[in-house]
């Protein structure tokens, strides 16, 4: 039996298993039959096993160079390195859907296994919800995009196996898509639990604790995947930036926004029994947006430079699925609306609850704005109004202030008291950070003056020029002072926490600093882990603000010439032609000079893969420092004269974006490791 046949049969069995399991779970829930529910649980494990088997089959097909299967033929060839043959599994549409099924099946099994004893009333509902979602994707695989589809005729007629585009054969391809998929798919679990709790009427159940870790897991992988995509674009593609508000980029961002809101809002529910309607809504929307994201990325409905093919059939199927989820879920919510009433009311504007509510509205607004703007060109066209393109300036105009508002809340939120902050408490909490923020603002305004003076070659800037500089960079200035404010709040919290943690046990000497730090994290891991994540976010914002001071120049430069770039000089030291088994390379040799001294030698290049002679790739090279990147990218090269079209960038503070992200992930790891209940009281 061929792999293609075995694979297809596995998918059919998987489909039948999903149907059966969902049926068992639904009937078992209705009849409260432990036997049927037990059967459903076994079904979930069987589904995971079948999905695992199907996945290993497709991987085997790749490793064995089974080109009778169309998918293998399209995305692999015999010469490809082993690693990329495995990653080709999720490289194309069909395989990526199977990857979705694998992840969802495994996560479902894990979630059921972990929570079966803890939430017996919820489990049947969790099962049929997760399995029905799985069923949809398995159905897609069988009826629309079977990765095991063989060639009907002789495979030789199809030509040579295409192989993975060499542009994609890098480490990023191995990590970036799976990370995003992990983030997307894991949102199904909190969704299933949230819906199960509402359906079962168990609104006080601690379902949110069980799913907090899943949501954090999802959030972590979405964050990682998003930033990795940005880093990939920055390092490999040569246009000098890392985020372009492209629809596929946005598709990863909007579920991230609502997941962030959910992670915060859930604390309010835990602590005060409030915002339950918000939380159910947020978890529905987050999951829904993860499907929208998958749909946008793979259906070609929206124009994108990530040129996935257009697939109207797939688009329509997904569209129906999305409508069913949306109306079904919110229908259930509305049915249980009264039951989800808050236990308490908002008492004051100066309370943490209120800050979190504003946070919810802000992040929801950002998610809907990005979604709406991404979809707007498509709707505009459907309405017969002609086609339009949304530019970055549209997104930045709204998202920059919104992001700064979020940064402000990051500083304020943790410092506000529950229910109501007294004047005393406000004073105690905010005086120092506000002072730090104001001093920073004045400081950067003064620094602008100094910078302007340098640009004008020592001439004192006029008031008008200074004011223009401040206005030009107003958002960056605001960002710097808010970053300082928020950082001060976090440092203050740590300092105060450490002071308490250092207090000795009676009759003993004061604890050492490392000891105190460890105590701090063990007592309130979630809180301090959260602060580290906030610090990471603040650092990322700081890094983004550097863009306001960036420089870009395009020049034609001959070997031996030197051009100016900000306070650097770039000297063309020649070109070099080389070749390896895969490609021809022209490498430029450039010296980056500052005050006449060579700071670094950079070697941007252009590569022509033999496989893709019409599609040269641009390899950038950059000089990295904490202050800025000097980034060089060669465009066209004239080999007879050596004339090179060079694109040069100075990207201030860009490396802080990556540093901040690492901090975020580190903080997240601390939080995920938290043992639940003890921390709830501490936040």
């Amino acid at each position, binding site marked *: 039996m061929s792999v293609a046949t075995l694979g297809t049969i596995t998918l059919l069995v998987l489909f039948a298993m999903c149907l059966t399991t969902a049926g068992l779970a639904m009937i078992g829930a209705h009849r409260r039959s432990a036997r049927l529910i037990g059967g459903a649980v076994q079904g979930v494990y069987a589904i995971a096993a079948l999905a695992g088997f199907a996945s290993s089959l497709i991987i085997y097909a790749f490793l064995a160079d089974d080109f009778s299967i169309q998918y293998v033929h399209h995305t692999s060839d015999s010469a490809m390195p082993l690693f990329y043959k495995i990653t080709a599994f999720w490289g194309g*549409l069909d395989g990526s859907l199977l990857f979705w099924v694998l992840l969802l099946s495994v996560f479902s099994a894990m979630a059921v296994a972990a929570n079966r004893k803890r939430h017996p009333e919820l489990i049947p509902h969790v099962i049929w919800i997760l399995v029905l979602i799985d069923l949809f994707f398995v159905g897609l695989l069988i009826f629309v995009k079977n990765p095991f589809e063989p060639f009907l005729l002789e495979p030789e007629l199809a030509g040579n196996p295409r192989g*993975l*585009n060499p542009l994609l054969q890098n480490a990023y391809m191995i990590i970036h898509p799976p990370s995003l998929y992990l983030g997307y798919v894991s949102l199904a679990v909190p969704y299933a639990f949230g819906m199960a709790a509402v359906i079962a009427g168990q609104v006080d159940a601690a379902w949110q604790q069980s799913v907090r870790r899943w949501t954090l897991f999802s959030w972590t992988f979405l964050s990682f995947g998003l930033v990795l995509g940005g880093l990939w674009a920055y390092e490999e593609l040569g246009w000098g930036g890392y985020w372009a508000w492209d629809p596929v980029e946005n598709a990863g961002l909007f579920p991230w926004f609502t997941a962030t809101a959910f992670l915060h809002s859930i604390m309010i529910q835990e602590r005060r029994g409030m915002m339950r309607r918000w939380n159910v809504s947020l978890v529905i929307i987050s999951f829904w947006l993860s499907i929208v994201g998958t749909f946008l990325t793979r259906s070609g409905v929206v124009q994108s430079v*990530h*040129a996935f*093919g257009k697939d109207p059939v797939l688009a329509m199927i997904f569209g129906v699925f999305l409508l069913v989820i949306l109306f079904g879920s919110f229908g259930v919510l509305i049915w249980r609306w009264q039951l989800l009433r808050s236990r308490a009311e908002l*008492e004051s504007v100066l309370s943490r609850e209120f800050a979190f509510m504003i946070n919810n509205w802000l992040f929801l607004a950002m998610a809907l704005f990005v979604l709406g703007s991404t979809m707007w060109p498509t709707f505009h066209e459907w309405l017969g109004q002609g086609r339009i393109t949304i530019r970055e300036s549209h997104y930045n105009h709204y998202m920059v202030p919104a992001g700064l508002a979020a940064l402000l809340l990051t500083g304020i939120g943790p410092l506000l008291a529950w229910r109501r902050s007294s004047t005393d408490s406000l004073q105690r909490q905010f005086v120092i950070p506000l002072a730090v923020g104001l001093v920073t603002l004045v400081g950067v305004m003064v620094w602008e003056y100094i910078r302007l003076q340098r640009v004008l070659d020592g001439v004192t800037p006029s008031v008008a020029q200074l004011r223009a500089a401040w206005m030009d960079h107003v958002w960056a200035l605001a960002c710097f002072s808010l970053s300082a404010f928020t950082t001060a709040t976090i440092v203050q919290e740590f300092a105060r926490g450490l002071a308490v943690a250092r207090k000795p046990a009676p009759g003993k000497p004061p604890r050492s600093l490392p000891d105190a730090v460890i105590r701090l994290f063990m007592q309130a891991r979630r809180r301090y882990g959260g602060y580290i994540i906030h610090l990471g976010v603040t650092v990322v914002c700081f890094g983004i603000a550097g863009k306001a001071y960036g420089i870009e120049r395009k020049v034609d430069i001959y070997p031996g010439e030197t051009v100016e770039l900000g306070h650097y000089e770039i000297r063309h030291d020649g070109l070099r032609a080389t070749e390896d088994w895969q490609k021809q390379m022209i490498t430029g040799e450039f010296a980056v000079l500052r005050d006449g001294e060579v700071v670094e030698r950079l070697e941007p290049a252009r590569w022509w893969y033999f496989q893709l002679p019409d*599609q040269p790739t641009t390899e950038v090279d950059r000089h990295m420092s904490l202050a800025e990147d000097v980034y060089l990218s060669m*465009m*066209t090269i004239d080999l007879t004269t050596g004339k090179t079209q060079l694109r040069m960038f100075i990207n201030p503070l860009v490396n802080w974006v990556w540093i901040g992200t690492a901090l975020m992930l580190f903080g997240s790891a601390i939080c995920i490791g938290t043992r639940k209940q003890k921390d709830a009281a501490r936040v």
Partner: protein
Amino acid sequence: MALSKTSMFVIAGLIGVASIVLILSAPDEGMLDYIYVDKVVDSPSDYVGRDIQIHGLVVADSLEQDQRTGDYHFGVEYKGRRLAVVFDGQLPDTFAEGGEVVATGRLDDDGRVFRSSEMSAKCPSKYEEEPGGAPAAARS
């Protein structure tokens, strides 16, 4: 004591005002019309005087570079209608005669020449779905 209606109104009002200010100050070139070259050539007066994006195929053997200014001159066409383009940036990696381009810029007042500083190009060879996340169109 619950949050007073006054506080809620004030907050909502502030947010509302901020949103309106943002919307009114939105940049004009945030949204651009995207038109195929044949429509532009047929009714240029509709498109003069503002930034737009045009989509067409690069006419074979039409690419020239002005040695003095470095600008590129080429023709784009769609469904038989042809438009002259002057481009002052650097040609994207995948620019090729016969290939599709999307150029951002402005039509001259006389509607004969399109001046552009930003362009993305798709390789002339046809793709089906691209695996993974690589851009098939390079941007300049």
